[in-house]
């Protein structure tokens, strides 16, 4: 037997869906260039040469590309190279005796800074394009060449410039970044080209040559995977390649099955910032707002007015479409200092979700008041997580009614929004007819792990993490009861975002799904292929 290596799982945020399997390549940052001693004439010639080399390289790269988005990125860089407004000050600085690299940086850095500070996300993202151009010219001045990336590798880097992304032969590979965001230009390019990408991953112990699988649907990089995990991901990769061949990348209109039935597809979001780059017309509303983000970087819940302002922003973005806001779902894998219990032996089975909220009625009341106030401004719905017994939901209903009554007494405008529940505990699914909910939203991630008694973070238990007959039976039950009662029912969770499972969910009667924004296109394409009984 050989030396056994423990697999390591590194968590980040999904930026472009899909999976990749292969060897890692760690990209290193551009080293600062030592200022070479050059005469003014030599420095002038060096910069002119570097600009010409950049122009040549970008022109050649443009000719190889066949998509308009990618060409537009390079077209901007080429146009900048051709603009004397940018280059003349650099040559003037050289004439005053500045070294070529310093002169070039001094000319372009203020432009980069002005984009970095822009309020519009589109213009803010252009800073990366200019930085890309700056570094290309600097590398050329320093006589450096780019690290070679073999086709199909999983590339790990602190950040990657758009031209570098476009020049890489990705094949079946993927991208992991320490920095970056799901709204960056590279993330948009990765999504449009179907390259799996995860951001926000700690890369301290990631080295070139390590074997890895990248699960960009879940936002996880697994280093040194065991053979079972590797096989499972090889299969997912094959299924994904097949689904992409059949998918329609333009599927951003309403989702309709092959038999003409409309399916509502909503998005899951973790806060207003995520909506900046999204067009509300591409979805049927927001099916899940995770309010845990309210705590981020504060250590306390924002007060009623702050929460109200944030909920209003979500409703304004949705422009009349429904927005379902989940009350605080702390605990489990989402601890919150000062609120959740640090010493729970099994946090997933502990005081989390509504169990926590009902034990902190003061914190809960603030959130309910802010929600009742915001409900006046749009189609807001309130959803309670981790409900297990009917009386938990009834208590929430009483607290919500109290919040509305208090606001009315204080002459504040408020409305009692529909109150629904997440169905993620098997006990609730099995007795769903006993719950007085205005709507039901099946949380597939927790429902699966609680039904199978298997953690979804355990790679060895991959085969227990799927939609088993037991799970599908529970889903069918919830859908049927909701129909009989005339209440809405939807499903949010990774199951809905996986195109291979969409037909299964539609077979079980679901006609409303809520998925991560980056899965919208693939899910709509899967719906368009669906024919009942096929």
């Amino acid at each position, binding site marked *: 037997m050989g030396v056994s290596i423990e697999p390591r799982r590194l968590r980040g945020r999904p930026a472009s869906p899909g999976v990749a399997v292969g060897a890692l390549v760690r990209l290193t940052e551009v080293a600062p260039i030592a200022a070479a001693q050059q005469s003014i004439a030599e420095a002038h010639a060096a910069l002119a040469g570097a600009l010409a080399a950049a122009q040549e390289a970008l022109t050649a790269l443009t000719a190889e590309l066949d998509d308009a988005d990618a060409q537009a990125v390079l077209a*901007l860089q080429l*146009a900048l190279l*051709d*603009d004397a407004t*940018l280059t003349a000050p650099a040559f003037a600085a050289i004439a005053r005796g500045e070294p070529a690299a310093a002169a070039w940086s001094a000319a372009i850095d203020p*432009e980069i800074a002005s984009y970095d500070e822009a309020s519009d996300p*589109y*213009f803010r993202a252009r800073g990366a394009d200019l930085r890309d151009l700056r570094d290309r010219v600097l590398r050329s001045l320093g006589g450096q060449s780019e690290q070679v990336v073999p086709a199909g590798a999983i590339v790990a880097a602190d950040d990657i410039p758009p031209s570098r992304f476009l020049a890489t032969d990705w094949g079946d590979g993927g991208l992991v970044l320490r920095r970056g965001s799901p709204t960056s230009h590279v993330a948009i390019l990765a999504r449009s080209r179907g390259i799996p990408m995860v951001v926000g991953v700690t890369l301290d112990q990631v080295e070139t040559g390590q074997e890895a699988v990248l699960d960009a649907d879940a936002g996880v990089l697994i280093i040194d995977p065991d053979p079972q995990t590797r096989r499972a991901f090889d299969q997912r990769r094959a299924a994904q390649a097949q689904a992409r061949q059949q998918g329609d990348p333009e599927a951003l209109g309403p989702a309709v099955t092959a038999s003409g039935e409309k399916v509502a597809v909503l998005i899951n979001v973790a806060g207003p910032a995520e909506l900046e780059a999204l067009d509300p017309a591409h979805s049927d509303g927001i099916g899940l707002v995770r309010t845990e983000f309210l705590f981020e970087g504060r250590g306390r819940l924002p007060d009623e007015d702050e929460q109200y302002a944030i909920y209003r922003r979500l409703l304004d973005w949705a422009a009349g479409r429904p927005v379902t806001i989940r009350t605080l779902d702390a605990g489990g894998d989402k601890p919150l200092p000062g609120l959740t219990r640090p010493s729970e032996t099994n946090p997933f089975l502990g005081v989390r979700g509504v169990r926590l909220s009902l034990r902190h009625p003061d914190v809960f009341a603030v959130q309910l008041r802010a929600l009742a106030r915001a409900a006046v401004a749009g189609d807001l719905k309130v959803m309670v997580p981790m409900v297990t017994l009917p009386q938990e939901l009834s208590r929430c209903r009483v607290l919500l009614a109290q919040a509305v009554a208090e606001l009315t007494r204080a002459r504040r405008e408020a409305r009692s929004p529909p109150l629904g529940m997440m169905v993620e505990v098997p006990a609730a699914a099995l007795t769903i007819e006993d719950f007085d909910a205005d709507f039901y939203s099946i949380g597939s991630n927790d429902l699966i792990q609680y039904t199978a008694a298997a953690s979804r973070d355990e790679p060895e238990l991959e085969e227990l993490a799927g939609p088993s007959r037991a799970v599908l039976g529970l889903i069918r039950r919830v859908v049927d009861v909701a129909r009989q009662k005339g209440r809405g029912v939807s499903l949010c969770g990774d199951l809905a975002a996986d195109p291979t499972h969409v037909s299964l969910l539609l077979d079980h009667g679901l006609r409303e799904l809520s998925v991560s924004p980056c899965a919208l296109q693939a899910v709509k394409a899967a719906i368009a292929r669906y024919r009942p009984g096929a």
Partner: protein
Amino acid sequence: MTKRVRASVLLRHAVGLHARPSIKLTKLAKGFESRIDLGLSADGPWVDAKSIVKVMATKAPKDCVIYFRAEGADADAAVQALVTLVEGDFQDGR
């Protein structure tokens, strides 16, 4: 003969003066001899309409009015062509 010409046009492009429309605009402007300026109000500040750096830096959003002023032998034709480009949604509808 030197002429001075001014015109304004509503920017209806879906996203504003992004990279693609800015590149088209500066390329078109460079085809004229006249000095051409672009501004977001009738009295400036003005930037060189032939410079991508300057034009993009205006960060003009959708639904704002763009002002042109040109000075030179072909000023009339230049302003006419630029207004047509913006009115025609930069001929790409995107």
